[in-house]
């Protein structure tokens, strides 16, 4: 792992979005972003605890893989993500924790809308003298369900996301396939991302990725499964970089109006510039 030993060079004195996605952050984030955003996010999380709740949430079986089913119109759900990335093999003291606070609801019986109120993160990289909170972006997500994974031969949905932050703009699209067979749910995502970054968005980059998840429902409250994630960066949309593959188990629990799912992923390839271990927890409430 080369997170501190051979960090990518700064471009115009700043980290690119591709660098940040790998755990390299810009030390010169404005202090307001560092101090205010976590406070706002904590208030949002706290508010989701205090709002009246009575419905069973549209629980997720996976954390890295999206499902083809969409929420029914009506209840609004708060989803809160925490993703911890670390690289114990090469840089034991490196830790990156990303947070996402999302509200999602069904607009129609086939269209689900998600609003990422804030993506923000904490970085601790003593070797590089980088640490602290930073606001990264906010986003709008749309998922349109095309077919039913239970009654049709194959469930499917289309996903679109538009994301903006202080130094980045991103468009993301996915094809989501899913099949429910008895207690098993199998889901596949094919993803294409286009990123523009830096002050005048002159830097362009892309990423192609795919993910596969299998989940088994042990009981109505406990589910277990596995997730695989495969990513290929396309800097400047030119030659593809080495592809990186992660894999790991997942566990999901749901009760009453809330649910939580956790997935630790280990890098199955040997790409030094990527983190070795990432763990994502998503917990949701409906109100």
């Amino acid at each position, binding site marked *: 792992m080369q997170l501190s030993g051979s960090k990518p060079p700064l471009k115009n004195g700043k980290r690119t979005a591709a660098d940040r996605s790998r755990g390299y952050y810009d030390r010169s984030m404005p202090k307001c972003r560092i101090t205010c955003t976590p406070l706002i996010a904590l208030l949002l999380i706290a508010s989701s605890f205090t709002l009246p709740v*009575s*419905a*069973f*949430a*549209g*629980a997720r079986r996976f954390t890295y893989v999206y499902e083809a*089913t969409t*929420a*029914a119109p*009506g*209840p609004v759900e708060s989803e809160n993500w925490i993703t911890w990335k670390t690289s114990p093999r090469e840089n034991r003291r490196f830790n990156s924790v990303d947070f996402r606070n999302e509200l999602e609801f069904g607009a129609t*019986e086939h269209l689900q809308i998600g609003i990422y109120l804030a993506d923000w993160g904490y970085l601790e990289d003593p070797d590089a003298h980088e640490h602290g909170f930073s606001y990264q972006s906010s986003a709008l997500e749309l998922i349109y369900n095309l077919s*039913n*994974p*239970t*009654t*049709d*031969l*194959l469930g499917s949905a289309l996903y679109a996301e538009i994301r903006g932050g202080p130094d980045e703009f991103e468009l993301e699209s996915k094809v989501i*396939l*899913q*099949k*429910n*067979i*008895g*207690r*098993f*749910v*199998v*889901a*596949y995502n*094919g993803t294409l991302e286009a990123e523009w970054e830096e002050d005048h968005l002159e830097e362009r980059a892309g990423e192609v990725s*795919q993910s*596969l998840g299998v989940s088994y*429902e042990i009981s*109505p409250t406990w589910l277990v499964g596995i997730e*695989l994630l*495969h990513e*290929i960066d396309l800097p400047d949309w030119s030659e*593809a970089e*080495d*592809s990186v*593959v992660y894999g790991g188990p997942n566990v999901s629990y*749901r009760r009453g109006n809330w*649910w939580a799912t956790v997935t630790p992923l280990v890098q199955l390839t040997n790409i030094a510039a990527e983190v070795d271990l990432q763990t994502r927890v998503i917990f949701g409430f409906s109100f």
Partner: protein
Amino acid sequence: MKLRSVGWFGLSLLVIVGFGACGTNPGSSFPTAETVAAVGANRGVDLATLNRGRKVFTTTCTECHVAQPIAKLSVAQWQRTVAIMAPRARLTESDRAAVEAYVTAARRTVL
């Protein structure tokens, strides 16, 4: 793009398509409204209500858990289950009634 990456993409697609192709027959696990009506199990409930009930049963209910096969529970057990689950899923009264009409009629069909 490296051959290994292409292979990985292909393998994943094969897995998901394979699961879809080899999946259980949804018509037998969750009979359509037309099938239910064809054997007279609808007992006067119209096709639109049965279709609505099947749609809600296989979409809203599966947001949180897999759909239980119709044959797994008796008519009385289905009625109790719908009464318990409908408030949790925040079903409207018309959707609750449609789901109950569908599962009870479908259960009579898959005896």
